[in-house]
Structure formats: C-alpha cells, structure tokens
C-alpha cells in the first residue's frame, strides 16, 4: 500500500442531519476520500469537549464535528 501519509479523521455526525447527509451522498454515489471514521450521535450538541481531546489522543489526525 502506498506508504505516503493517509489522513485519519474521526467524524461525529448527528443522526438526523449530517449522518443522513452522508447517507444521501452514498445513495447518489458521490465519491469522497476514505479518510473519515464515523461515530453516530443523536445530536452535535452531544459532543463533549473531552471527545475532541480523546480523538486526538487515539491517533486521529483531525476531528470533524458535523450537525
């Protein structure tokens, strides 16, 4: 596999908006880079500041919060 840097991003997606948007991107087969790892939450308000720190400590290169 190419050894050049593959960014890894943890994505907190709100179930009703962003997660549904991501599904719609899937249904319409819109391609995007396989860098995100999605955690489904019920609302972007659920993201505790500690989640962001945890994400960076767990080895991710970026944190995406999308409501």
């Amino acid at each position: 596999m190419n050894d050049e840097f593959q960014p890894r991003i943890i994505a907190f997606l709100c179930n009703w908006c962003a997660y549904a948007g991501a599904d719609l991107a899937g249904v319409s087969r819109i391609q995007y880079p396989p860098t995100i790892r999605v955690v489904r939450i019920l609302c972007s308000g659920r993201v505790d500041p500690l989640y962001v720190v945890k994400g960076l400590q767990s080895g991710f290169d970026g944190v995406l919060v999308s409501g």
Partner: protein
Amino acid sequence: MAVVRYLMELSGIGADRLCLRWVSAAEGARFAAYVQEYSEQILRLGPFLPDDFALPLAAMDKALGSPRLRWLMGMEIKITEKGNIYGEKLDEQAYRQLLNDAAREEYEKALVLAALRTRPGTVRDIALETGLPVYTVSCRLNELERSREAELCGYRATSPEFRHVGL
C-alpha cells in the same frame, strides 16, 4: 467548541485539527465536498503525532474537565442573557474573553501539574518542561498549592522544589 479551539491554538496543536461543518439531510453533495476539503487540509498539515503532544493533550483533558470551566461554560446563557440579581450582564465579547482567560489559566495549571507528575522540579525545570514563562509557572504553582494539588518538598541549592501531591 470555541474553548476547545482556543486551547488547541494555545497548546500548539493548531485549531485547524478541529473542523465544524453544518450539513442538512438533503445536502449529500455538500457533505462530500466538506470531507474532500478537510481531508486535503489535513494532508497538507501532515500527521499529528500524539506522543509529541502527550503533555498538552493531558493538560487539555484535565482543564476541560475542571469544574471551573464546566460551570463557566454552562452558565453562558445565565451570564450573557439573564444576568445576576443586580441585573448586570456581560456582552458576548466580554464573556468570550472571560472564558478564554479562565481556560488559559486552567490549561497552564494542568500543564504544570502534568510536568510535576513525571518528577518533582523547580520553577525553572517546570518552565523548561512546559515552555511556559517563569512568572506564569510560579503563579500557577501557588494556585496549585492553595488547592493542595502541589506542595513544597525541599530545596535544590537556592531554588525551592515542588512535588505533585500524592505521588
């Protein structure tokens, strides 16, 4: 999230490691575009090595968990809209400043504490370890002493040495 972003900037991690985007259920294309754009941005930024930032991350973790910050964040509506019994209110800007200052202090305290966790040290050692100015380190240290999280444990030549309580 604004506080987290501020602290990330302060700690040198860089605020662009955190990205907030708003997408509705009908905007699949927009979501894909955001992922594309943010991935490229992270590609340019390069990998984030958690071990290099072990100390700042631990400090952020403790600071964000500190009762002082959590209460301050929780009271935003109360302070900026409802006001206290005298009816005094802070405008958004003043509240933001207050929150950032508190966040910085808590972060620095946590950083000092984290440095002490490895081994006891003088103000200079702590400054070296944490990269903070000497004056800041001593202010935070006496706050930590007052909250009995750090204590004097001896002298090295003329400079006092401090220790993490309970280690």
